[in-house]
């Protein structure tokens, strides 16, 4: 019998006519159920790639922890004032590459600087990092000499993003330049910053992080998808 669930590009979705069949487009934002006469649409729900916690290791773990009970990787850290990046990192792919991550935030907001999360590039030889940080009141690309010492803000963007319930971040190294992107739908990305691939660091590691930046409020975020292309 025909498979009741199928997946592929949206353009390859077959004509309706098999009642109960489900189609999951790997380049879309919905799932479709065949009534026998037409495709019904449920969403938004987004395709991804399951992250593998064992691929990552800690930098500046402190009291941070990860768990995978409910799908994805939930990264949580204790509250602490000032920067203290709790990082899960792995080796970068060979250039050119793009890494896209999907997050579901469990962070506090606020009018003053507070919880942040996002993606990170790291240079293993000296531990310098650059983060693509989602936080309030301003998102930013920030360089760090180590996980607790910010060096400078390279680009601020997306003021007051208000902890969107889900967010995609993307880091790309094409062998010449490194670029930083974000998206609220996983399909269309907005570039927020670009520099030469040796700018501040030449990263050989990549990962994700949370950062409390607050003495009372503890950050948490779930990495729902990690895709390397």
């Amino acid at each position, binding site marked *: *019998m025909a498979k*009741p669930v199928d997946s592929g590009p949206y353009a390859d979705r077959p004509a309706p006519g098999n009642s109960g069949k489900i189609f999951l487009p790997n380049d879309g934002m919905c799932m479709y159920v065949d009534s026998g006469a037409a495709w019904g649409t449920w969403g938004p*729900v987004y395709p991804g790639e399951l992250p593998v916690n064992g691929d990552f290791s800690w930098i500046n773990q402190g009291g941070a922890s990860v768990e995978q009970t409910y799908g994805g990787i939930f990264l949580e850290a204790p509250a602490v004032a000032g920067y203290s990046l709790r990082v899960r990192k792995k080796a970068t792919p060979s250039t050119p590459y793009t890494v896209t991550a999907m997050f579901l935030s469990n962070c506090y907001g606020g009018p003053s600087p507070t919880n942040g999360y996002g993606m990170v590039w790291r240079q293993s030889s000296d531990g310098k990092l650059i983060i693509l940080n989602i936080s309030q009141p301003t998102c930013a690309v920030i360089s760090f000499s180590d996980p607790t010492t910010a060096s400078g803000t390279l680009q601020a963007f997306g003021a007051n993003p208000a902890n969107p*319930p889900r967010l995609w971040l993307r880091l790309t190294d094409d062998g010449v330049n490194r670029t930083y992107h974000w998206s609220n739908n996983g399909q269309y990305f907005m570039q927020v910053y670009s520099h030469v691939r040796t700018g501040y660091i030449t990263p050989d590691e990549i990962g994700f992080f949370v950062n409390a930046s607050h003495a009372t409020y503890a950050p948490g975020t779930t990495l729902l998808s990690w895709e390397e292309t």
Partner: protein
Amino acid sequence: MARRQPVRTDGGAGILVDYQPVMGQAPGGGGGGGCEDYLQGGAFADLPAAETDGRTYVADDAMMLLFDTGAKWKPWAPLMPFTPPDDSEFSWDNQGTATVNEEGGGVWMTDTAGPHELRVRYKAAPATPYSITGLFLNPFYGWSWPSSGLVFRESGSGKIHKWGEQFSGGIRRSAKWTTAAVFSAQYTGLPTTEDHASRMVWLRITDDGVNRICSWSYDGFHFKVDHTVGRTDFLTADQVGWYMRPGGVLFTQTILFSWRET
């Protein structure tokens, strides 16, 4: 143990999955390869090894639907399990001009230009220890302090301890009300965001027999505690429920998508 059952749709209300034991049966193996074998569900921890292209796993305790490519499980997310509320179990406190209707898998509460009072739907509390977890779509209209969330209520006095997100100021607030119409004092007010209208949030109230505990989550699985107080402070709750506080201008609307008692 993984379970199986065809997916069916029901009048646009959602996708209903009614599992049956799979009894260790593999797709196409021993059971004729029916569609039941391709549609499985269960705990995320029981996800079998990927090996059958087209198999789909509905994890009833995870944030995703998983599709077996034959080589790996590919997630579609976020997709959370709900427990649809049954509005017939609840009664009104201070209904005023508010209305509720059960539609589309949730319960909608709407009020027209109501005052800044609590419109409450309540029922008897479970025996302690218990937790109530509600999934809310925050009030749509963002004018002047609308909010929604969960309540502890004391039937003898009508006192309420409410726990909810408030649009103006971006605050998740735990507060005492002498009645549904009379504010008493705030317990806590911690920052959420300035712009949470249209965002969904899980709110949880717990009575563990010693304390009343208020917590929240944006994913439905990882909850952060914002407030804990002794279970007899201000009131001793024998009722629980949910509320909406109208914004005072035009209309305010919120949706309760899920109500789970554990």
